[in-house]
């Protein structure tokens, strides 16, 4: 389904140049919470869960394209973090550490699930259509709400993401979707910044092909 309105989607969101809000990774605050959690304060760990659940959910959801899988995986991620919080020495920041756990567990999950998984309509997050921020951004230039078939766009984006290899999908999620810097991504993935940039470049080239109709 190639709506003429779909091709105008990029124009509609051209105003999306505003920087992605910086991650509230206040390392000092995290350190205090981690120390308290290491001392047996479960409330401190709850605060860490509250703080990182939305971000990590975004990461896992965009890598799996499935809400249930994302929620289950996130439970596993925090359970593992809780079990090994006492072994966390603080050599890296807590958010790098927890992101590393999340990425590794998600990659393992995807390997087990195999590459035969297809994105279904059920996997599409229907709540996005009602997101006020999303509406504001997509109607900024045109002033019309439904010029872009949002549901179709979202479906195409997810399909394009799932066509990428797991490594490429991870860097696209971390960089384009979540707004991490190259250096942060290299720390999370344990690879060089050059590798991150290279993966990002090839991922963008592939996405250009997959989303040709939207990018024109």
């Amino acid at each position, binding site marked *: 389904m190639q709506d003429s309105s779909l091709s105008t989607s990029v124009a509609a969101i051209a105003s*999306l140049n505003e920087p992605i809000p910086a991650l509230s990774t206040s390392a000092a605050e995290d350190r205090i919470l981690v120390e308290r959690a290491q001392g047996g304060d479960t409330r401190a760990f709850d605060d860490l869960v509250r703080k990182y659940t939305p971000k990590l959910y975004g990461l896992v959801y965009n890598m799996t394209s499935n809400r249930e899988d994302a929620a289950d995986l996130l439970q596993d991620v925090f*359970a593992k973090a809780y079990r090994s919080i006492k072994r966390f020495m603080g050599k890296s920041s807590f958010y790098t550490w927890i992101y590393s756990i999340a990425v590794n567990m998600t990659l393992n999950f995807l390997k087990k699930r195999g590459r035969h998984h297809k994105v279904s309509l059920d996997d599409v997050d229907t709540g996005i259509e009602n997101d006020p921020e999303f509406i504001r951004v997509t109607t900024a230039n045109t002033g019309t709400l439904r010029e872009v078939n949002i549901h179709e*766009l979202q479906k195409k984006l997810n399909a394009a993401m799932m066509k990428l290899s797991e490594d490429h999908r991870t860097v696209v999620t971390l960089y384009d979707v979540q707004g991490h810097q190259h250096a942060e991504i290299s720390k999370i993935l344990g690879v060089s910044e050059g590798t991150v940039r290279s993966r990002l470049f090839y991922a963008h080239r592939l*996405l250009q092909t997959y989303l*040709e109709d939207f990018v024109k």
Partner: protein
Amino acid sequence: MNHQNPKDAMSDFENIQRLMRLKRFEQPGEGFTEQFLKEFHQRQRSEMLQQSSLHLMWERTATWWNNLLVPKWSLATAAAAVCVMSVWLLKNEKTTPTISTVDTPVPTIIEKPFIPKMDLSELPMANTADRNNKAVEESLLRKHLEIRPVLEGKIQPLPASAEGFQAPIPEKKNPTAQQRKSVEVPGK
């Protein structure tokens, strides 16, 4: 999508980035985090229950082990002794020659002349040298004893002009003319 112009490629890349940024709006609903936390607590509790049964078993095992009343030091000493013994045995095993299965050539036996082992001093020829030496020693001793009493009473100091003895002669220098005169006229 092969662009001749790099600017076009860059703009396409930026468009891709903008498109992908849209996915950041795919967030769970407001109540998701609290519900998630509740589920997490439930999971933690069930894990703790599972862990506690395992922990209980571990504790019982540890208590039973402690009840054996085996002093820790004796255990440590025994372990150390076992270690030392095993090291010693290993060393000995290394030093003992191993039987090689490789076919080695049979060494050729060189026949040496038979030399009987016996005490040469028992031979009559060997004793002759000793006997001769002893005879010489005895004769020398006898002569010494014979000469000594003779010498004890008769030895006298030899005169200065004795044969075979010469007193040291001072070195004569050529006298000067004055010395010569004094020699010539000793009465003065």
